[in-house]
């Protein structure tokens, strides 16, 4: 009878642990893990984004470390003089622009700037990372510019948060990526440029991915240009 009891306790503990696993799986680690083939997570997405902007990687930002990511990393490592083993460790992270010193590196300032617009900067950087990870730099600035153009447009809310959090306006808000993806370093530069007035679309208020299903209505808008995987329209 004792053995039965012990077995039941063990099995139920296991079941509880499995259920708990559902909760923990959602959390993300923001430290710099060592990455290799088969890993997945937001840091893999960050590597893919950086290498894509630099021309080493041309696949999708899948957050999964597959074959294409491996060859891209090895190619990058060869170019910067690191052993091309396809493993993203401390040195490779540093070469990608993410040294192991944590926090505030993304902001790029040694003295910890307190920017009077830091709330706008943070919000825009998050949206850029959520919507345009892997896009060329001017595509990221353009996405932020679309948001700022909407603030000034009568058909849209009158504030930055209003435009961004309008129900169903942005995919990365609806699926939570805006909060779960830590903003990439370049996103802050792009956000700052957009806040300073840069707009490579000169007035667009819509953008979408033409290869993804969207409402028919948006195709009736006048298209200004295409940058990377986004079409911009007014």
């Amino acid at each position: 009878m004792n053995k039965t009891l012990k077995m039941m306790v063990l099995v139920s503990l296991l079941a509880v642990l499995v259920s708990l696993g559902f909760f923990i799986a959602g959390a993300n680690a923001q430290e710099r893990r060592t990455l290799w083939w088969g890993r997945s997570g937001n840091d893999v997405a960050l590597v893919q984004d950086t290498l894509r902007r630099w021309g080493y990687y041309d696949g999708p930002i899948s957050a999964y470390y597959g074959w294409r990511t491996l060859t891209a990393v090895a190619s990058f490592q060869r170019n910067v003089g690191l052993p091309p083993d396809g493993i993203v460790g401390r040195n490779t992270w540093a070469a990608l622009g993410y040294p192991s010193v944590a926090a505030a590196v993304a902001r790029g300032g040694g003295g910890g700037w307190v920017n009077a617009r830091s709330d706008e900067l943070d919000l825009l950087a998050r949206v850029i990372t959520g919507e345009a990870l892997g896009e060329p730099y001017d595509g990221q600035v353009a996405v932020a510019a679309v948001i700022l153009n909407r603030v000034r447009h009568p058909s849209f809310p009158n504030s930055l948060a209003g435009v961004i959090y309008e129900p169903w306006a942005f995919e990365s808000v609806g699926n939570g990526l805006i909060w779960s993806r830590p903003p990439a370093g370049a996103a802050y530069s792009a956000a700052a440029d957009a806040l300073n007035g840069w707009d490579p679309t000169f007035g667009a208020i819509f953008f979408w991915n033409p290869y993804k299903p969207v409402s028919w209505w948006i195709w009736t808008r006048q298209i200004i240009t295409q940058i990377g995987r986004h079409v911009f329209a007014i």
Partner: protein
Amino acid sequence: MRRIDRRWVVAASLVVAVVSLAWGLGQRQTRDGLRNALEAAYQRQFYTLIDQTEQLNVLIGKTLVSSSAPQTVAQLSEIWLRANAAQDALTNLPVTGVNLSSTRKFLAQLGDYAHSLSRQDRSRTALTQEEKERLARFEDELAKLSSQLHSLQARLERTGFRWAQAAPGTTRPLLGGARAQGPQGPDDLRVLGDVEKRLQQMPTLIYDGPFSDHMEDVRKPRGLKGPVIGQDEAQAIARRFANLPPGYRLVGKPNTVRGRFPTFAATFQTRNAPTRIIVHVTRQGGHPALLMNSRPVDASRIGAEDAQRRAGDFLRKKGFAEMIPTFTAQDNNAATISFVPRRDGVVIYPEQVKVKVALDNGQVVGFDATGYWTFHQDRKLSSPRLRAEEAAARVSPSVQVEETRLALIPDRAGKEILAYEVRGRRSDGTYLVYINAMNGKEEAILKLVDTPSGRLTM
């Protein structure tokens, strides 16, 4: 391998089943709680929309009846407030099946129009006949909108509509979830589509405000002169302007940018250095209008004044004469400096050029002359009727005047005004007060906010 006793298998399965069930029930409870909270938020927005629209309806009527100027100004201000609240509430509703941009513009324009009316000089008359007619038009449409919102509310109440339903394609409601609360779908909100169609027919409204229908034309470039160029010429101009380091190649063909400011966009990239350089050249006249260099910038080594000097040198080399720096912003080890031309002693603010300097080696990594090429033109400016001292005297005595100079500034509706820019200090910071050089009216006030990353104007 020992045969596993059937009892253990049964026991284990039972335990797993019970735990899974408990977890599932817990999840359902969480989901329902969240859905209720979300539904409450959306319901609040819907009822706010109905309430504010109803009040707007009444307010416009009162404004049209009133013959007292101070009362009119108060009512117009309240219209502005409530129209903004209504538009905000509308943009917070998860309406997917219908596009409501004309309805939202209608509410925003009503508020902005009322606001611009309230800012005018009302000392002699309450409202002119034309202004009354325009407001009456808004009142007509608002009455219809209000009544349709009321009938929509009644209908949604009857059918048990819930705003917080899953959008198509994202999550599937559990069996007996959304369905159990009554039939719902885009049909329920169809009446909003009728409202939208009607409001698309609103006539063009031109007035003194940022949401006026003429603002699109104001932003059309008038500084672009010269022959229209082709893609190859644009490429050559872009290459020359960007002063490319060796190894940079053009990626594809220059992209065509249509719309208000037509350009060709050339992107240059190199395999060994991780950057892209994008240059926009205007199609008319072949003027370089935008440059973006995305290279990561290392820690700062040069200071703000040095950066400003380099930016000025860059502009002079590129043919921009008489430019003076106005504001600097510093983000991420790069300084963005705004320049405007000063001609015949007048600072021309609309013709702005921005230069971004990397603070690690002083290289120019950004250039934006969109403002310049949009507003650049030959102007015959009239002589100011006031003298500088008279303008400075009109500024509040709580401000200690430091400098006064002539400037051309745009008003809220894009019209250019010749004004004296009076810079002064007060206990809480520096202010710029713009006094109209013709009639002495106070046109605008800007506050300069000093932050470690630069000077912001608010």
